[in-house]
């Protein structure tokens, strides 16, 4: 079975920091995989490498078996690899609806009505009353919801979410969680979810990958990796309950 997303031997150095050191990781079709690890472990670097923000020094990235090395960010996005940012990148002066439509524009499939798709996404994100409000006036949680909605406007094959739950109130967290599960079920899309929220990771991700110091330190179920002494010492601090 081909993996939805594959990173093979990725390396990236920033000055003296080896941010990614021979990272190999795959996310199978339909899988929701967690990516955890201490701050500075290279999780966001990995996300940036697979989504084309910068090229790896060496190694390869494959989307559904096809190499996407050397492609620009927008080309990768058009091929169905969609990402979200830790710090939301919305179009501040545009309304919620316009943000959704902009995300639809370049990737739009034939015969799909953008307005209708936006309307549906406004319902899914529960942002109905704010549909014509400028994005810059939204709260942090609402921005996170909108960013998810933008990503889901066009069905993708793989979603890479960088800290989608960081600093967000429990109600919106739950909504985002439900959106991820729904898209995963309906579209069979694969997810790689970066998060520090162990409770959510346990609920959402059957399998996790642990990164430490630029390397993949462990893979397995959350409870398996949480028992490894190196993971406890280098990241969790104490065993999970």
């Amino acid at each position, binding site marked *: 079975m081909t993996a939805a997303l594959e990173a093979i031997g990725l390396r990236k150095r920033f000055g003296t920091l080896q941010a990614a050191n021979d990272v190999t990781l795959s996310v199978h079709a339909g899988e929701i995989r967690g990516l955890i690890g201490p701050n500075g472990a290279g999780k966001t670097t990995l996300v940036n490498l697979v*989504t084309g*923000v910068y090229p790896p020094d060496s190694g390869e990235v494959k989307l559904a078996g096809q190499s996407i090395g050397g492609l*620009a*960010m*927008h*080309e990768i*996005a*058009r091929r169905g690899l*969609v*990402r979200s*940012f830790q710090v939301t*990148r*919305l*179009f*501040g*002066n*545009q309304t919620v609806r*316009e*943000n959704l*439509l*902009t*995300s*639809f*524009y*370049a*990737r739009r499939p034939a015969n799909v009505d953008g307005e209708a798709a936006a309307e549906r996404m406004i319902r899914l994100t529960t942002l109905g009353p704010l549909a014509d409000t400028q994005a810059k006036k939204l709260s942090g949680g609402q921005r996170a919801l909108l960013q998810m909605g*933008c*990503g889901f406007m*066009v069905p993708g094959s793989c979603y890479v979410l960088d800290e989608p739950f960081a600093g967000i109130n429990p109600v919106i967290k739950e909504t985002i969680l439900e959106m991820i599960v729904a898209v995963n079920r309906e579209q069979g899309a694969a997810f790689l979810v970066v998060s520090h929220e162990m409770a959510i990771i346990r609920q959402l991700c059957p399998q996790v990958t642990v990164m430490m110091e630029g390397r993949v330190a462990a893979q397995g179920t959350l409870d398996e990796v949480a028992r490894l002494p190196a993971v406890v010492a280098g990241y969790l601090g104490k065993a999970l309950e």
Partner: protein
Amino acid sequence: MFSTELVVQTFISGVMIGVLYALMALGITFIYSIMRMINWAMGEFYMIGSYLQYMLVAWLLGPDLWWLAILVSTAGVFVLGLLTEWSLLKPIFSKPPEVRGDYATVITLALLLMLRSLATGIAGPNQFTPGSNLPIVMVGPMPLAGARVAAFVFALVALGVFWAVLRYTWYGLALRATSQSRVGVQTAGIDVQRVDRMAFGIGVALAGLAGALLAPVFLVFPTNGLVTTVKGFEIVVIGGLGSIPGALIAGVALGLVESFGAAFVDSAYQNIYGFALVLLILVLRPNGLFGERGREA
């Protein structure tokens, strides 16, 4: 002391020239808001627009087809803008952004000198005028030069089209989004380099259009873009860098200030009044009327 008629006439001529200044300012602010760079060679694209207009009217199409010449001149400057972006700006814009602004400043200043010298070298330091056989237009009791009225109407239509494209088309949505977040649009699958190229083309085409429209009024010579560019920048400071409504309102405001200053104070200082307005705005609202302090990366 002052006749109503004079006030009205001054007002009309102020608005008419202000709209043309606004075209120029809009080009500067539009390129800035998308590409985050100042195109210092804006006046040279204005100059090229005016030369194209002169050549087309004098040699090819004749004064009756002045409107066609305007369209062709504007299109010509647009294509030149695309080529400039592709050959001189894109190579550095595809690299990480640290020195982008500095590079763009150096390259567009170099372009300014080169294009001016080229114009002097080819056409000499002479002044040309494409001539206009448009009749005097009477607005109420006031006679207005046909070429000025035509320029005003053409500029209004261009501004309307520009606004409608930005407001109502998919591409306009992509352009507006790019001005908000260059990273965000790439995540949405939009090719930001293509957007850059279009934005540069459209921005300089606005300058080219102003040049072509004002050719019969302000004449055609190698440095004719200078004064209009300075006014363009004055407007951008007044209206706020990156603000499209700011460019329009400040353009008309500048036109009015100049026109009233010239009529009621002293016409010798016409180009000074705008600077006074700039200073006033800088004291009262340092970000300009509609400028934003910052934006998301």
